[in-house]
Structures are given as structure tokens and as C-alpha cells.
């Protein structure tokens, strides 16, 4: 049966600096997200959710899923470095495969939305080239990206990664508190993206304007 689907990707930094409070805060929030999205018929039937984690490697922890039928969401484990290049490349490949599969199944696919969460500065490598490939206007599947930085994240890099809006922790909350606010804004965004119809009654990414504990930074024009 053909459906109209808005895919969400949470791409989460799990480098060693996330150990302790930050990773615990994310792991506590994922079951809440699972519960809130999965029990809301308006949202659950139209959104799909995927979890990608990265440090010096990147992996799909939860493939693009209907949260109303998955039994649980995997948790993150902190270790290693911060390599954006592998994250963006995996995201590119995953979105390509997911959209191709959804289209092959006859679904109407809306532009994917990415929540990108990081606490550090990326390893110096070719991540900018990988990012440009992911957000190339000529690539039909390029996602909308909301970027969240906390801890030591460089606000200029957050601004560079975001295509819609960036958010940088302003220090008013500890890392765990900031990540709880992040998780809440993620849930709110998914819910309102699924429920607030756009121009043709379909869906598009509904971005938070402000997130408590974070400073909003405009996205660089891609």
C-alpha cells in the first residue's frame, strides 16, 4: 500500500567525550521518543525514524523504522574519536538506499530530515567534501539538516553543518540537561512535522525556533 513518508535521521556523536552524563541523557530520551512517536497515530503512520551513531566509525543502529512497530530503540556507547566524514558518507548511502527502497515499494517520499548532534570538533579530514556531496543542490534526495552542538562544539562548524538552523549550547544547562532539551525538541519537531500539514496537506520538516539551553544560529546558505 502506497504511503506518504517523512524520514527522520538522528545522527549522534558517541565519541569518548560523550561518556557519562551526556550519553546517559540521550539513552534515557530514546525510549521516551519511541513511546511518544509510536503511540501517536497521526505521526507514527507518516514518519520513519533511523538512528545513526558515529565516532571514528559510523553505523546504523536502528534502520529506518516505523516506531509504532519496533519493540525498542538501541542505545549508544561512548568511545573513540569524532569523524564527520564517515558519518556524512554513511548518511548519504543510507538515505540513497532508504529512499530507493521506499520508492520501489510505491511510497511518496518527503524530503528527509536530519538531526545532527555533536559535542566536539571533527577530526581534520575530508569531511567538508563529504558534507558537500550530502547537501549538493543537484542531489535530489539532499536532506534538511538541523545541527546541535554542545560541550566543545565550534559554533562556526554547527552553522556550517546546518541547512535549516543550528543550535549551540549556551552553557546555562549542563551537558545532560542540554541533551534532554535537545531530545524534547527532536520529539516536538517530529510530532509537529507529522501533524501540521503544509501547503498541500502533506508534511515537511517543522524546525524548532528556539531550544532551551541553546543559542540559535542561522544555517549557512548551501
Amino acid at each position, binding site marked *: *500500500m*502506497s*504511503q*506518504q*513518508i517523512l524520514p527522520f535521521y538522528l545522527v549522534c556523536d558517541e565519541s569518548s567525550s560523550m561518556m557519562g552524563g551526556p550519553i546517559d541523557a540521550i539513552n534515557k530520551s530514546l525510549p521516551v521518543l519511541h513511546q511518544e512517536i509510536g*503511540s501517536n*497515530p*497521526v505521526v*507514527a*503512520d*507518516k514518519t520513519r525514524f533511523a538512528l545513526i551513531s558515529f565516532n571514528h566509525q559510523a553505523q546504523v543502529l536502528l534502520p529506518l523504522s516505523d516506531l*509504532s512497530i519496533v519493540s525498542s530503540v538501541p542505545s549508544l556507547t561512548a568511545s573513540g574519536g569524532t569523524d564527520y566524514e564517515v558519518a556524512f558518507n554513511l548518511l548519504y548511502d543510507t538515505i540513497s538506499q532508504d*529512499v530507493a527502497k521506499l*520508492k520501489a515499494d*510505491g511510497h*511518496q*517520499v*518527503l*524530503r528527509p530530515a536530519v538531526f545532527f548532534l555533536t559535542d566536539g570538533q571533527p577530526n581534520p579530514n575530508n569531511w567538508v567534501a563529504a558534507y558537500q556531496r550530502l547537501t549538493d543542490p543537484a542531489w*535530489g*534526495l539532499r536532506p534538511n539538516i538541523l545541527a546541535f552542538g554542545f560541550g566543545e562544539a565550534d559554533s562556526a562548524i554547527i552553522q556550517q553543518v546546518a541547512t535549516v538552523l543550528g543550535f549551540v549550547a549556551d552553557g546555562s544547562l549542563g551537558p545532560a540537561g542540554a541533551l534532554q532539551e535537545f531530545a524534547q525538541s527532536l520529539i516536538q519537531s517530529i510530532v509537529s512535522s507529522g*501533524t*501540521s*500539514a*503544509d*501547503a*498541500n*496537506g*502533506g*508534511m*515537511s520538516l517543522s524546525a524548532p525556533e528556539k531550544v532551551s539551553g541553546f543559542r540559535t544560529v542561522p544555517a549557512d546558505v548551501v
Partner: protein
Amino acid sequence: MILRRSEPGPEQDATTDHDGRPDHDEPISRPDPGVEPVSTQALGTQTEIPPRERGAEPQPAVAAEPVGVPEEPPSPQPPVFQAPPEYGKPHERAGKPRGIPEIGRAAPDMVVDGADFRTLTVRGASLRGDDHRYSGTTRQDSMGLWTLRHPWEGEVLLACVADGVGSQPLSHRGSELACRLLRAEVEPYVADLLDVGERSRRDEAARQLIERVALRMRGDIQDFGTDPRTLSTTLVVALVELTSVEAPRNCFVFGVGDSTALLLRDGAFRGLWTDKHGDGAISDSRTDALPGHVGSVATAEARLGGDDALVICTDGLANPMRGEEVEEHLVRQWSSRPVPGLLEFAWQLSFRAKSYGDDRTAVCVWGR
């Protein structure tokens, strides 16, 4: 759900009852997901409304007590309602109407309308989408049916559907206003709109009428003290001659935005103009809308034959119809004779398809 025959007797088709209605042992608006289907289709498959036998006397739903008398006679089974078809296993709580909208001039959950003319039959329904039902917010689609005096002889059917743009707070008023103002402004344009000899004249009349409606909307919006965009709506209009006894009948259809016009002929729907969503990898959700962004006015001529049906609809129907199951089911329902009754038409339009929670409005005109 479990089908149970209400009386003993000859074997009947699994979905056809003596009075044209299926019997069930419980009132079903939603199947219980925890219960295995026993003798009918599982969730996610389509169920067929049984064909009706016009003129057949309704039979009592309670079985007559047979001779020989069992000690405990069967308890009376009230006639029950068969839920509309479901596709793709929607969420078990999809479409629960969880509240009455708390806004001024909220539209009722649904409107059903229609008429059996001597040479045509028209049915229309505008249904609140499952998303609006669940959130307790109002239907934003509107529709209208009227007959007008034909410029030369007889009458003309005027039908319209309008889809209030989902993100705008007063678009339910906008769609209703667009339909009402169309009716108020249409008559001076009818002769040109029905002029089969001059396509350019028809197109120009359509554009002028749409712009006139947009102008009137902007004027009325001043009374609201609000930004015209808050009333944004699509509008699709069909004019069909009621005069001709011999098929085919002269039709003219035009519209603004992503609502659609289709012709059902020879067992297939054909779009009367190009689908503006396109076939790209990512669905495009932008649309032109009255009163602020009229954009291009799509127009189409059609000759409605005796076996044809002309459909104008909002994307709450057009989007799920991209799925073959839904499309094929509607082809069967709307190609068969007799034309569905008013409530039957609304029932047919009430199918539930996973992820499609938008308001759904359609007007169908059959050439018979």
C-alpha cells in the same frame, strides 16, 4: 471481525446479505487488532461493499423463530455497519474524533450532497481527515453543488471542491468562501465557459472568473482584519450541461492549485491536466492557492459519455489514489451500475489508508 448470518438458509455470498448489508456480531468501526480475523478479510485488505438490489424489500434483521423451537431462541442481532475499507494497516487509533473544534465557524465533520437528474447523476462528499479528527481540529476542505440556468436552454450543473491550505489558520473559512463566491460570480461567465467552439475564450473566461473570485476574497478578508494568506485555498470547478439527453455532454473543468480533475472511462482514471506534484524522487508539496497566489489556471474540456464519470477532488483523495489498491477499488465501485446512493458514496470515500490523514473531498458526475 466475524461475519454471522442472521438467519439460517441457503448459502450466501460471504459479503452479500439479503438486504444489501453485511451482518456482523458486533458494531465495528475499528477491528480489534488483538483478534484474528475468522471469516473475512484481514486488516490491510480491501472489503467490498455489497451490491445493492434496488427495489428489494428490506428483510428483517432478526431471524424468524424456526419451527421445532430451540430451548433458547437466538438473541436478536441488530443490523450493523460495515466499516469502510482499510489499506496498509493504519495505526489502531487513527481517525478517532477526539474533540469538537473550538474555533469560529468550524465545519462539520462531513457533508454529503447529490442529485439524480434526468440525464446525469451527481454525488459529492467532503470528509474531515483522520489527522483533523484525532487532533480535534476542523475540516478545511469545502465543496459546493448548484444548478444554474443555461445561457441558451435548460440548466447547467456547477460543482466545486476547495482544499484549505493545511498550514493556514483560517483556510477552512477560505475554502468555504471560495466556493460561495464562485457561485455568486459565475453566471456572467457561463456562456463563454460552455462555448465549445472557442477554447481560448473558455480559458480566458476561466481565468477571469478565478481572478474575480480572488478579488472578492481579498475584499472579504479585510473584514477579517487578517493577512489574505491565512485563507489560502485551492479551487477546482466543473460545469456540466444538463440539457442534452443524448450523451456525451459538454463539460468544462478548471482550477487553481493541486486539487485534481479526472475522467473515469473504460475502467481507468485519466487526469484531465498534468499532476503538479511531478514524478521526482522527493514529493513536491508546494501549491498555488487563492487568493494570493493564483498562478496558472488549469483548464480542460471533456465530453461525458453515458458510461463515464467526471471526478473533481482534493489531494486527500488524489494522493492515496496513487496506490493501485485504492485506485482499482474506486474504479470498480464507480464503474459499476447503479450509481452509488448518497450515503454509499460517502462510505466509499471514507476508506482509511495508512499515512493519508488529510481531508478528503470529491464530486463525481456520472453520465447516466
